[in-house]
């Protein structure tokens, strides 16, 4: 459900729990925001187009929301949850104001962010966030679950930066699980940091400073998804076992990563190219 429960009592000093929610619906031929609930550091605001957009191309008839961080973090011990419901036939573009910096907390412990998303029949979801930066000694678990209806469309980007400039990253894990019509479509949990053995080796990330992917789901690809395309030594487009593609890349830094992912999206052509 997109209407979350009230914030839980804070068990330990400096630990923050946040429950935010967002819902859209189709009304009178245009998408509109039906529910918008910020909570503490998770600040949701209706917004205007911000730079190039894939698929929706700054159209005015879509619901557009921006997620901003009200405080630094998450820090160790913090527990954030965001629930998103893209109602039948509506279009939601979710963007972010700035990169998210994940930091260790004063008391240690793991920070968590859980995002639960439902994309209903005929809906379109564009999630175009900024990178997550895993700072030195952080310990963060990012968990994104998406259920998308078989006739809905979606494009989302995820980028992780391994430490601030010149520092080693802390422990970071990011799971993205997408089910389509209840069946698994994509499920990957990326880990790096001192606790993830082999992550900086040649099977996983090598010496990359940034890693990311773009996932695109389009029901028109049921019989004919775009073919696999390794378009750079460190990047490839791969069709999934369903009407979807993943564009994956590693790079030295966030700028180079963004360039590779953007190129992968441009290669998809209309209507996805930004």
């Amino acid at each position, binding site marked *: 459900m997109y209407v979350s429960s009230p914030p839980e009592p804070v068990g330990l000093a400096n630990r923050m729990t946040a429950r935010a929610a967002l819902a859209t619906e189709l009304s009178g031929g245009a998408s509109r925001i039906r529910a918008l609930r910020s909570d503490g550091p998770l600040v949701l605001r209706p917004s205007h187009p911000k730079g190039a957009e894939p698929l929706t191309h700054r159209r005015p008839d879509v619901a557009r929301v921006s997620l901003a961080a009200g405080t630094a973090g998450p820090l160790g011990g913090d527990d954030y949850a965001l629930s998103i419901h893209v109602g039948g036939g509506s279009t939601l573009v979710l963007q972010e104001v700035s990169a998210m910096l994940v930091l260790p907390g004063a008391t240690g412990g793991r920070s968590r962010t859980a995002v639960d998303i439902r994309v209903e029949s005929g809906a379109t979801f564009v999630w175009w966030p900024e990178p997550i930066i895993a700072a030195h000694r952080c310990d963060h678990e990012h968990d994104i679950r998406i259920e998308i209806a078989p006739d809905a469309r979606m494009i989302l980007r995820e980028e992780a930066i391994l430490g601030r400039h010149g520092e080693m990253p802390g422990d970071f894990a990011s*799971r993205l*699980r*997408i089910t389509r019509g209840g*069946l*698994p*479509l*994509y*499920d*990957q*949990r*990326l*880990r790096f940091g001192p606790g*993830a*053995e*082999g*992550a*900086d*080796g*040649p*099977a*996983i*990330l*090598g010496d990359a400073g940034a*890693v990311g*992917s773009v996932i695109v789901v389009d029901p028109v690809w049921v019989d004919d998804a775009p073919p*696999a*395309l*390794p378009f750079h*030594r*460190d*990047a*490839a487009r*791969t*069709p*999934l*076992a369903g009407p979807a593609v*993943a564009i*994956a*890349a*590693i790079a030295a830094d966030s700028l180079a990563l963004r360039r590779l992912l953007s190129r992968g999206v441009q290669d998809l052509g209309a209507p996805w190219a930004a």
Partner: protein
Amino acid sequence: MARAAGGSAALLLLADGRLPAGGYAHSGGLEPAVTAGRITDMAGVERFLIGRAETAGLTAAAFAAAACSRAARDDLSDLSGLEAELDARIPSPELRTVSRNLGRQLRRAMAGIHPHPHYATLGAAPHQPIVMGVAAAVLGLGPRDAALAILHETNSGAAAAAAKVLRVDPFEVHAILARMADRLDRLAGEAAAAAAGPACDLPAPASPLADIAAEHHRRTHVRLFAS
């Protein structure tokens, strides 16, 4: 159909690289990583093997264990669900194809070596870990054995490939395998534990470079190994 004596000999049979199931044609991503210039020495081989065991190895082990426990109960009704969960964990179509080719081959071999009606129920092109799990059950082995068999087979296969694509001392290759023995045991335990839960919660560790390199490898004209 559990074995009284622990089934160690049956486990060795299943994990042996000489099992005639065509595994020798694959390097488990090692040659693609060498071709890309990401492995140049033995330290690189070891880091590669560790990373691979912790990602693709753990995934394969968990699915082998899950298939084994289902086959041991004679309940193969949701094997297609396991297949779909495994597909979702392998973004590269090349690696999905390799897994299914190796699965077909393993089934072809095991159906001749130790026939069982389970093999006929596995669909046209089952994933290798699923077949390994079923084969383990048919031999009277348990989920942890199935996990260990596929971890060992894929790890030693990739290590053996190092001798053909790099200048290596074969004793050093096996020294790496010896150092990894505890790791494989631990991963097999994790896999077996995960296999007791629902399929949607089976491990899904990502290895972006393995996916990217596999797609490049398919398009490389000169290669020794199929993957």
